[in-house]
């Protein structure tokens, strides 16, 4: 788990530099946002010429899932608001799943331990990738532009856990393809959120 997160962090670092992020911005983002797919999405939208607002909205939409995820484990958090706020930042997909999130067996201490290890690996990997990526001036060098698509696909595969998720993904892809020629870059990504009505209707 930890080496895998380190490697993914390094990928983010390299891709961020290819989208004109400085090394410091990439590392600070990993330390504070600590959410892989959203971070890659924001640098992708910026790199495609999508502008700041579109990049931010796309990333935050990917992180909306942390509201329901956090609610499944809320009962286990103790102490002051500041402490709960800090500990909540360590809830990511991996630490949630490994600590029994969503089940009665959820263990906050396991979540904190796993979350801390993953955070260190994520930030460290980003630093290494951002330094390596500094030597790459053109995003298309070494095929990095194709690597973005492959990485998003790999992240997508992990979320295809139901037929409705597959339907939402196919609809999202169709919306993006249809809107790309019609709207500024970034908008098709945000509009793809409308694909959730597929899930709603079938729900």
């Amino acid at each position, binding site marked *: 788990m930890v080496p*895998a997160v380190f*490697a993914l962090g390094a*990928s983010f670092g390299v891709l961020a530099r290819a989208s004109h992020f400085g090394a410091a*911005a990439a590392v600070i*983002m990993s330390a*504070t*946002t600590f959410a892989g797919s959203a971070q890659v*999405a924001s*640098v992708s939208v*910026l790199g*495609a*010429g999508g502008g*700041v607002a579109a*990049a*931010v909205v*796309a*990333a*935050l*939409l990917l*992180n*909306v*899932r*942390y*509201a*329901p995820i*956090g*609610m*499944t*484990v*809320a*009962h286990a*958090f103790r102490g002051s608001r500041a402490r*709960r*706020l800090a500990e*909540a930042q360590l*809830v990511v997909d991996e630490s949630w799943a490994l600590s029994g999130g969503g089940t009665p067996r959820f263990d906050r201490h396991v979540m904190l331990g796993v979350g801390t290890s993953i955070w260190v690996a994520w930030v460290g990997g980003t630093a290494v990738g951002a330094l390596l990526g500094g030597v790459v001036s053109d995003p*298309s060098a070494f*095929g990095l*532009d*194709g*690597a973005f698509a*492959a990485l998003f*696909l*790999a992240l997508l*595969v992990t979320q295809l856990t139901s037929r*409705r*998720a597959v339907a*939402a*993904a196919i609809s*999202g892809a169709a919306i*993006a393809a249809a809107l*790309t*020629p019609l709207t500024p*870059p970034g908008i*098709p*990504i945000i509009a793809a*959120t409308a*694909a959730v009505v597929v899930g*709603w209707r079938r*729900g």
Partner: protein
Amino acid sequence: MSNAWAIVLAVGAGTVLLKAVGPVGVADRQLPARVSSLLSMVGPAILAALVVSEAFAHGRALVVDARVAGLAAGAVAAVARAPFWLVVLVGAGATAVARLIG
């Protein structure tokens, strides 16, 4: 402030708040099942849109170029459940090779 730092700040602040909704905000209340099921569809929809955008969009045009080779090779690796770093490496390598011979 550069675009990158504006994104770091806004995405960071928004994510901190989203992660806090459960543990700090609503405590023991649960979202209705339909709402959380709806929210869980947002990720697949956006990630699929990002795949299309990164593989086929060039500005406002849809094009087929060397990136498709990277997507195809990455797809094989991803479906085989290869680790993310390997998918990235395979995707970049296939794109670079396709561009070289294309």
